[in-house]
């Protein structure tokens, strides 16, 4: 007779099972979900302690912290999924201060009926992304909402990081004469997502650029510690990010359209849909603003890194109290590159 009492007599049926309200009750089912799915994939020493909080030692110096909620439809898209995105996005937010990201937390809101197989795929992808980035998920939370009150899964991640001494990257430091760089082609993520939406399926080989940028940032900071601004142009795209920085720093910007790297497939998709690529989201790109003397050195460092191969100098910071971002068009005219208004909606004609 088997005398070992198993903690969970019924195994979690990850292959065919679905999330139900008991998984969010805080009871046995929650514990089983955490153990059999979350801890199993995200496993690390701190998470294994199974406390309600993560305890870790911090080094002396300046710390940064950032949080980001991730809602994306569809959950799985060419080049990534919501799990990897939730890791990359928050690591990048911390990295844009020049910091080394150290730890992540993750909170899941699951919709009743969501397939456990999909959840496992997402968590495994998170684990892989976190492991590759060297930033473990050390604490987390799970809640379940009734069917119809969520969209499968929402993930909120928070990251903390440590800023090296002497690094003072901030959105308010752009000054006239500074040079604007971007780490690669823009619009890849947004177009990859759109291409996989149910009502807009079109065939493309474009993949999301979702990636953790902290190692690229570390190389840049090592080469030029006095970088003025760094930001990842996610929602709202390059145009919105540059407008934010212009506003924060009280300066204008002048871009050169033909210097901005865009994949031809992305340009074609935007053309077809009537969208402006400057407003399309990125998840693995950064914008850097630096003194003119640092620009060429940074460009070389970026291009030497796998995530910055197509980096380019795209424009210059100019004096403009109104904070306009303008662009010399490849055609030879000039236009304002304004804030995004609402959502980009396809044009009729």
């Amino acid at each position, binding site marked *: 007779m088997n005398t070992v009492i198993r903690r969970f007599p019924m195994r979690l049926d990850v292959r065919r099972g679905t999330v139900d309200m008991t998984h969010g009750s805080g009871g046995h089912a929650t514990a089983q979900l955490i153990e059999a799915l979350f801890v199993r994939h995200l496993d690390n020493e701190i998470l294994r302690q199974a406390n309600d909080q993560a305890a870790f030692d911090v080094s002396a110096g300046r710390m940064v912290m950032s949080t980001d909620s991730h809602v994306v439809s569809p959950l799985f898209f060419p080049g990534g999924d919501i799990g990897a995105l939730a890791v990359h996005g928050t690591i990048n937010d911390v990295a844009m201060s020049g910091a080394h990201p150290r730890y992540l937390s993750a909170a899941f809101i699951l919709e009743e009926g969501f397939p456990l197989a999909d959840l496992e795929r997402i968590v495994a992808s998170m684990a892989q992304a976190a492991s590759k980035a060297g930033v473990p998920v050390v604490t987390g939370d799970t809640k379940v909402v009734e069917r119809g009150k969520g969209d499968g899964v929402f993930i909120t991640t928070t990251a903390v990081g440590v800023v090296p001494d002497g690094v003072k990257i901030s959105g308010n430091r752009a000054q006239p*004469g500074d040079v604007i760089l971007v780490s690669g082609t823009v619009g890849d993520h947004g177009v990859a997502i759109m291409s996989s939406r149910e009502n807009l399926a079109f065939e493309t080989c474009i993949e999301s650029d979702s990636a953790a940028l902290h190692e690229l940032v570390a190389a840049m900071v090592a080469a030029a510690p006095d970088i003025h601004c760094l930001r990842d142009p996610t929602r709202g795209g390059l145009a919105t990010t540059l407008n934010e920085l212009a506003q924060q720093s009280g300066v204008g910007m002048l871009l050169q359209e033909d210097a901005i790297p865009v994949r031809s497939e992305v340009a074609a998709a935007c053309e077809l849909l009537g969208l402006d690529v400057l407003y399309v989201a990125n998840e693995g790109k950064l914008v850097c603003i630096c003194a003119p003397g640092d620009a060429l050195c940074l460009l070389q460092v970026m291009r030497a890194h796998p995530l910055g191969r197509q980096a380019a100098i795209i424009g*210059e910071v100019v004096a403009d109290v109104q904070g306009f971002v303008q662009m010399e068009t490849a*055609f030879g005219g000039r236009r304002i590159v304004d804030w995004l208004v609402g959502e980009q909606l396809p*044009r009729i004609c």
Partner: protein
Amino acid sequence: MKYVDEFRQHHLAQKLAAAIGREVDSAREYRLMEFCGGHTHAIFRYGVQDLMPCNVEFVHGPGCPVCVLPIGRIDNAIHLVKQHDVILCTYGDMLRVPGSGRQSLLKVKAAGGDVRMVYSTLDALRIARDNPGRQVVFFAIGFETTTPPTAVAIRQAQAEGLTNFTVFCNHVLTPAAMRSILESPAVPGMAPVSIDGFLGPAHVSAIIGSRPYEFVPAEFRRPVVIAGFEPLDVMQSALMLIRQLNEGRCEVENEYTRVVNRRGNVKAQALVAEVFELCHAFEWRGLGLVAHSALRIKDAFGVWDAERRFSIAGVSAPDSKGCECPSVLRGARKPAECRLFGTVCTPENPMGACMVSSEGACAAYWSYGRLRQPPVAIKVEAVR
């Protein structure tokens, strides 16, 4: 990008700009109305105006279907969602257009109304098939370009016996609008319109051909050049118009020969004629009631007509007080001359329709070229 990059080349733009510079008579002004929102968009997005001599002015026309739709029709659509609980399918641009009482389809959607953005009439048909227990209305809007796909949808619904699908038809006609603008200097209370020539519709003309505009030179002595939507198309067409004006010629010319011919797409025209008929008159924002300027669904296809099925009453709602959209749409005023422009009326908070669509003259002015002191330009040597 083939067929696109060729029409955006800097060195060709410079050559055309030089040719226009040589052609213009500095002793006179040239006021050229670009009819379509697509032209307006190209002019602002590529900075075409910067390349033109200062005595050549683009006057923005009424060719944005979202902009010219009167508030009453938006109210009708909102009513359909709220009172009849239909699934309303429409193109993206329509969602933000303000109706009466600052309502919009986007707001109705946020309040729980079932409004869905579609990219094609086929999406609307699919939604109808997937929801047999619900009434699905396609909010059809657009000039002659988008009319054939709506005709296809109605015929498809007939073929499938899809009885829960209807079309709320708002398809309008460009030649009638052009006639209305040319006749409108006589409209009392309206600023006079002075236009020397037209950059004629591009995609619309692919369907109807260039022939329907021949009344413009014949009756009104104004030249028309059918112009594509790429910036080089716009510049080349401006040059052709300026040449006609300088030479005293007055005819319909076609710059957009890679797409448009005189007869248009006869097959599409036949399809439209099968399903639609001319409406006695239709209200346009900015132009008022314009005779024979829109299409309605024929009796034979009445089952798929939302106006019949839901007994939609014609309502005429006033535009926002102080809004100059009517004058802007007729090219009589510039957006910046409206006192609401940039004060209470911005793309985030549009009061008039011209601020809603990115093709609308006000939104294009605001987004791409609103009044500003140019910053001190410092040339960047792009490292490629």
